[in-house]
């Protein structure tokens, strides 16, 4: 099972390593991790996606709650939230595949954000599943490098958590 944890933490030095250390020390998985400030500069939000059995997922929340730098935790699954991931993909292209790549970019509602004679950079901002699909579509041509943010998520507006 997968679960998304929105962890509000004190924006202090060392907090990221404390939280990440907790995951490694207790053999919890981190599928993805994204960190950024919130509207309050003293507070950061860590969005962590983890997977495991029910007992592990519950322990993650309880152990996070024990960390004194953790202010609040919200947990939800993908149905209860809107999740997005931003990904940049640089690919090598040539005359013969250029058209196909651009069609795929269109079909996926992605953008071409930079281009040179034989390289182009594609940006996709979508659900983690569709970002993965984009990689799959491009896997037939040569991908030079990829950067992705990891999952960001917020609970749906109507969902009470």
């Amino acid at each position, binding site marked *: 099972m997968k679960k998304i944890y929105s962890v509000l933490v*004190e924006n202090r030095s*060392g907090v990221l*390593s*404390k939280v990440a*250390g*907790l995951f490694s*020390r207790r053999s919890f998985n981190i599928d993805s991790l994204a960190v950024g400030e919130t509207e309050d500069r003293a507070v950061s939000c860590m969005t962590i996606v983890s997977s495991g059995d029910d*007992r592990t997922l*519950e*322990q993650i929340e*309880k*152990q996070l*709650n*024990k960390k*004194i*730098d*953790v*202010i609040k935790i919200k947990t939800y699954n993908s149905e209860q939230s809107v999740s997005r991931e931003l990904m940049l993909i640089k690919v090598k292209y040539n005359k013969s595949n250029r058209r196909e790549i651009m069609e795929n970019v269109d079909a996926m509602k992605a953008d071409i954000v930079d281009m040179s004679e034989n390289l182009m950079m594609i940006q996709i901002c979508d659900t983690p599943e569709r970002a993965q699909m984009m990689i799959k579509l491009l896997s037939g041509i040569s991908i030079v490098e990829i950067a992705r943010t990891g999952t960001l998520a917020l609970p749906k507006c109507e969902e009470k958590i």
Partner: protein
Amino acid sequence: MNGADAMVKCLKAEGVEAIFGYSGVAIDPFWQAMKDSGIESVLVRTEQNAGHAASGYARISKKVGVCAVTSGPGALNLLTGIATAYADSIPLVCITGQVHSSLIGSDVFQEVDVTGAAESFVKYSYLIKDVSDIPRVIKEAFFIASTGRKGPVLIDVPQDIQEASIMDFNYPEGDPVMRTYKPTVKGHIVQIRKVARELEKAKKPLICVGGGIHLSQAEPKFRQFVEKHKIPVVSTMMGIGVLPTAHPMYFGMVGNNGFLSANKAMKECDLLIMFGARVADRAVSDPDLTLDGKIVVHIDVDPAEIGKNVGPAIPIVGDADHIIEDFLEIDFKDNHADWLDTLNSYRTLKAERKLDGEHFVDPAEFVHRLSTAMKENAIYVADVGQNQIFSCQNCVVREGEFMTSGGMGTMGYSIPAALGAKRADRSLQVVAVCGDGSFQMSMMELAMIHQWKLPIKIVVMRNNYLGLVREHQHYAYKDNYNMVDLGGEPNLERLSSAYDIKYIRAENMKDIDERIKEFLEKDEAALMEIMVDPYATVK
């Protein structure tokens, strides 16, 4: 006033009267400020023991134990002491010196990232970067260490911060306000009533107590509660002494080294209340299987312990003392007289055991006689190894306390912890019982006995082996012994005389009571060496 003066002022405001530690340049401003402060600076002989001594002090004084050491190797040596305290939830404030803050990260002499190294076994840690933070940090550290699930808090203070001048020193009063730390104290009353109803229904109720009862000082109320409702009690290793061992409601320690009567009670009960115990592997192996078919209630101050190893039917989060107080106010009838008869019939069950008392001292019988001869309120500190298991199984605890390193199993714990306990209350008789392996891990602390006037009693069970591992190799590797032979041991009589400590030796059980009497008489330091069969086993 500089940062170090401010630290000392804060510690005085917290009521600290002794600090165990070691010196070094990075912590020297602090020790300078400590001189003539009225707080005693107790020098240990290696930093690990500063942690253990502070732990022994905390367990007896019921206050936060404090230790302070230097940066780099000093801080690293202390880590074992910190982890040992963390595993047993002992409240400590550990202060480490750190290199100049401008040099942090450049790998200068005696620099180590101690807050990073200790992260997974401290309750919280601070690296002070601004001298004006000192009062707030120390206030929070004592609050965090001593509330909720207790534990060690580490404060790393760079040397320049200790030397920096501080304006407007002001020590905050009352509990600090921390938006992220609010430990649960009161148990949920609806849950407590639910448990009372289960106790009323249960035919075979049982309470398994752990160290949490000691930590919340709930022993008197707990005793009152089980006497009122005649509920049988077993304990984990950390829960030994919650009830006197001869109490009619006490049926012994559970677990792989526990009593048959206690383990049978665990197996057969229909309602099990784990009270201040974390369902650890040594107490309850394979919890899902062992606890299947029972109603399990888990009471713990740490919500993360509930459901970690076993999914309880009724969880209660809160401080033991408060929860028992609530239990005492609820009226319910109990109905399990037959169960008590059954359990009492199990008392006579003891594993067949033949220990040689003619050619050697029988360690099991010795622990029984020693603890019986000790004062009613004496402190018995068991080390780690076979000595610990013999102690747990045979120590008679009355109004005193039984201490040991339960969670971490740190060899060498008993002597420094006993010294800390004696420092907490010099009127108490304190006896450390160790093996010849664990003794040699902390024998350097014999020096503390005279320097700090801490006359403790030390028993060394000598079998010339690392006995518990030898026993393991006997069973698991068919006597293929390696790394367990303690050949080359010091002559303890001459060692004792070097430290001017009374020495007593017992070769066998003949006149053993006389030897014990000689060992315990007078409030003076004594070391008793007992010769134990090298091939004796705890099982």
